[in-house]
């Protein structure tokens, strides 16, 4: 970083968190008036994004908006601070929430879903918790929002209220509450050992604790955030959770919730342990192996799925580990690749989920084997799908190419050619499980999908926009919202200090 970062007092981070719970209350109060209710969601989404994006310019100028509310435990305050890492995550989540809001409205109404009030209210709370996670200035604040996110997602997972949904919900909670327990313990141990919980770029734990205990603590943290991040072997809740309505899978199980896990991991490596300590205690190696294995295994498992959403879920598991991998490469370019992938993967995967949902809402089909020739009926949807698929396979000009390019550089810079091989192999596997879908859709004949009949505009337009956004990230990565600069700034802030 070229300039020293300074904090200044601002209500903006707090407002960014509080917009959606306020909306949730209004949503609950307007349960009898669907149009008014949905208006609150849209207003909240737009306000939230406006608030977050207003913080981009100051943050890039080295001025971090921060607010310290009150002591939530003696000596530990409930505090928010918008730094480049946090803002980049908050920005992509809040931007995509706008698209998801419109899409949700179309999707829920097209399928005449029940309990829409509960659905939209929970959704708003989830986004609030995500902002809190992104902007938390210390571990306890982080933990509080992290647990709120776990709970607020639960009603969305069991939304269908079928036996399958309830058992998916139990599985989800079993994984996430155990992980939450591990995280709680890790935070408590950190407090007792270091006396502070405040995040500091470059980390603040001291090696004096000893290598063994530090590695133990690292593993506790890893379990804590790894479950949300779908890191194998803690991933299996995610494919089951695909029973949730598609917008939930799109925003929460591809962007907000799971990215909260990888984001948390980046916070812990970069702002609690610090790069050099992570390397010294062997944490980097451990996670490198796990993430590498996750990438390959998840891609292979994705191939075996016929259910489109489950295939996407396994693909998500693999791509989340790209980000984790980027973090433990501990080089600036590796971090850049990982952090930028948070945004690019979000744009691409949400597009794919939107497509899956549009197909389901329009034709009721969930399985890939039943989608032969669907490109004839829904050519625009499938075009967007193709864009997302190309990006996830790492092909230009979609954003996924760039993040993968940086990640590849990171593997070389840190001297791990084997991990480069993993990335390349994964690119092939991605192509292997996505392209057949595209081929089936466009080139297989079908008697079911004869005439042009796309999903509602409220679903079609968001998915086209997210696809366009994914391409924009590839050709003009800094874009209008400075996603690239934010990632780069965060990467330099962490790794420039205390690189191994």
């Amino acid at each position, binding site marked *: 970083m070229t300039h020293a970062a300074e904090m200044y007092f601002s209500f903006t981070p707090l407002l960014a968190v509080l917009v959606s719970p306020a909306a949730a209350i209004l949503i609950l109060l307007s349960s009898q008036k669907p149009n008014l209710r949905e208006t609150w969601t849209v207003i909240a989404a737009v306000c939230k994004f406006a608030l977050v994006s207003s913080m981009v310019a100051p943050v890039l100028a080295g001025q971090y908006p921060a607010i310290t509310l009150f002591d939530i435990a003696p000596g530990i305050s409930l505090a928010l601070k918008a730094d480049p890492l946090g803002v980049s995550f908050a920005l992509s989540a809040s931007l995509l929430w706008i698209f998801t809001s419109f899409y949700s409205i179309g999707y829920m109404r097209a399928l005449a879903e029940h309990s829409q009030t509960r659905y939209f209210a929970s959704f708003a709370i989830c986004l609030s918790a995500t902002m809190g996670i992104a902007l938390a200035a210390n571990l306890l604040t982080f933990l509080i929002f992290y647990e709120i996110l776990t709970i607020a997602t639960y009603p969305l997972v069991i939304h269908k209220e079928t036996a399958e949904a309830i058992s998916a919900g139990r599985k989800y909670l079993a994984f996430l*509450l155990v992980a939450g327990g591990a995280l709680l313990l890790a935070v408590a141990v950190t407090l007792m050992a270091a006396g502070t919980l405040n995040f500091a770029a470059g980390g603040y734990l001291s090696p004096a604790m000893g290598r063994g205990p530090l590695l133990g603590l690292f593993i506790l943290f890893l379990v804590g955030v790894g479950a949300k991040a779908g890191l194998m072997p803690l991933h299996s809740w995610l494919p089951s959770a695909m029973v949730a309505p598609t917008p939930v899978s799109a925003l929460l199980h591809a962007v907000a919730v799971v990215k909260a896990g990888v984001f948390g991991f980046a916070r812990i490596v970069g702002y609690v342990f610090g790069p050099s300590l992570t390397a010294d205690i062997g944490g980097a190696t451990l996670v490198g192996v796990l993430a590498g294995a996750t990438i390959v295994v998840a891609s292979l498992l994705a191939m075996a799925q016929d259910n489109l959403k489950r295939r996407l879920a396994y693909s998500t598991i693999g791509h989340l580990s790209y980000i984790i991998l980027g973090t433990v490469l501990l080089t600036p370019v590796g971090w850049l690749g990982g952090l930028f992938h948070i945004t690019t993967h979000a744009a691409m995967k949400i597009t794919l989920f939107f497509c899956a949902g549009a197909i389901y809402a329009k034709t009721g089909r969930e399985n890939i084997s039943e989608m032969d020739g669907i490109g004839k009926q829904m050519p625009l949807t499938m075009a967007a799908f193709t864009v997302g698929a190309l990006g996830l396979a790492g092909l230009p000009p979609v954003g996924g190419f760039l993040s993968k390019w940086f990640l590849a550089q990171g593997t070389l810079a840190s001297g791990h050619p084997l991990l480069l091989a993993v990335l390349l192999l994964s690119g092939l596997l991605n192509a292997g499980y996505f392209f057949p879908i595209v081929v089936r859709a466009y080139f297989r004949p079908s008697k079911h999908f004869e005439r042009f009949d796309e999903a509602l505009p409220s679903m079609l337009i968001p998915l086209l926009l997210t696809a366009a956004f994914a391409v924009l990230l590839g050709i003009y990565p800094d874009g209008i919202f400075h996603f690239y600069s934010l990632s780069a700034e965060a990467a330099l802030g962490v790794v420039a200090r205390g690189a191994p």
Partner: protein
Amino acid sequence: MSHLPVLIPITLLLSAFLIPLAGYVKRDFAFAIASVGAFLAFAFSLAGLLMVLSQGEIRYHLGGWAPPIGIEYVLDALSAFMAAVVTLIGLVVLIYSRRSVLHEVPLRVVPLYALAMLLLAGLVGIIVTGDLFNLFVFLEISSLSAYALMAIGDDRAPVASFRYLILGSIAGSFYVLGVGFLYFSTGSLNMADVAQRLPALYQSRAVAAAAIFIFIALGLKMALFPLHLWLPDVYTYAPSAVTALIAPIMTKVSAYVLIRMLLTVFQPAYLRDLLPMTSIIGWLAAAGVLYGSVMAIAQNDFRRMLAYSSISQIGYIGIGIGLANPLGLIGALLHILNHAFMKACLFLVAGSIRFRTGRWKVSSFAGLGRKMPWTMAAFTVSALSMVGIPPAAGFFSKWYLLLGSIDAGNWFLVAVILASSLLTAVYFIRVLEQIYASHANEESAPMKASDPPPSMLLPTLLLGAGLLILGLFNSAIVTHILNIVVLPLHRPGS
């Protein structure tokens, strides 16, 4: 000199005597007097707490007789805090109780309120007294009124209450035996005085016997595992309002006495460092935490589930006492407060469900989320708080207990605390699934139900909202009150 310490129990005692007289004229007077009495007692407690925090402890000599001859009432940070908790919960539950009592036991309204006030008077007396024998008197007042209160209720209530009476009497005798040993060892019954004389007698076997008797007695009264056997039946068969009054505070007051013994009478130097008493309590409590949670999972009767859950949660308090370090005891004291709120809220919810639907089986709760949205919202908050989801209050007591266990290097207790959170989640999620995501089945034929009337709903919501407020602002309570209480636990030089 301020009269506050004695005003709190006297107000409650007076209303207990007024209720039968006024109730003889008109049944509704009983409720009115009880509410006013409880409100005044709470106001006095709160005033006492604020005075203690600003000016230090208040000592009151009953009848003007100076201790150690006379009986002394003491409001210090610990007793003022406890008195405020007990009277507040008592007040909230009493306000709630009117409709519920009229619905469940319409013929016993007057005795019920008289006994309830007597119970509260006894509990508050235990808290404010600075005299070991006077404590026994109040213990018996509260116990006897509790037996009678619990015996009101359905057919099985008298038997359950009788079992409690036998065990409670054993506890009472053990306590008085222990106090007897202390008296002939030290020649005094005043707590402060006994505390001064004890260090010279730490090697005495009689003192050790006194400690053991007193601790068994209190373990029984607070239902510390394995002395908990009386509890589930009593909580299950008593009228809803009675359970809601007794469950959140009565066992806690015994826990308070345990803490008082640890901090003031015997002092940590004896119970923690010489006798391994606190660690024994810690291990038993840990076993109770797990046992209670596992048993709660097995229950289909909602009230019984809550009863076993109480055994488990009392274990948390026991763990804190067992740790006997500042963080651990802060956790225990905060959990006394938090759990009082949570359990009161949960039993009020149980009462409201019974009031509106007559049901108490979890499997028959399907669809209640839609029928009683506000009540179920309060239930959800308290359930999440029980599991320990931040920012609800329950998270923070676990947080301090966890820090205390780590501080003590006791990783077994760390594991117990975390495991129990998950077990608690298991039995509450099961209920939440029924309430929100289940569809009507044979057991729960379509029913007409709605949130209870405001006199029942508002206290429930108040407690639910209180859980969030207590959670967010726990730091103020810890810094201003509990940190003062736990000062004696700091080891010299650390």
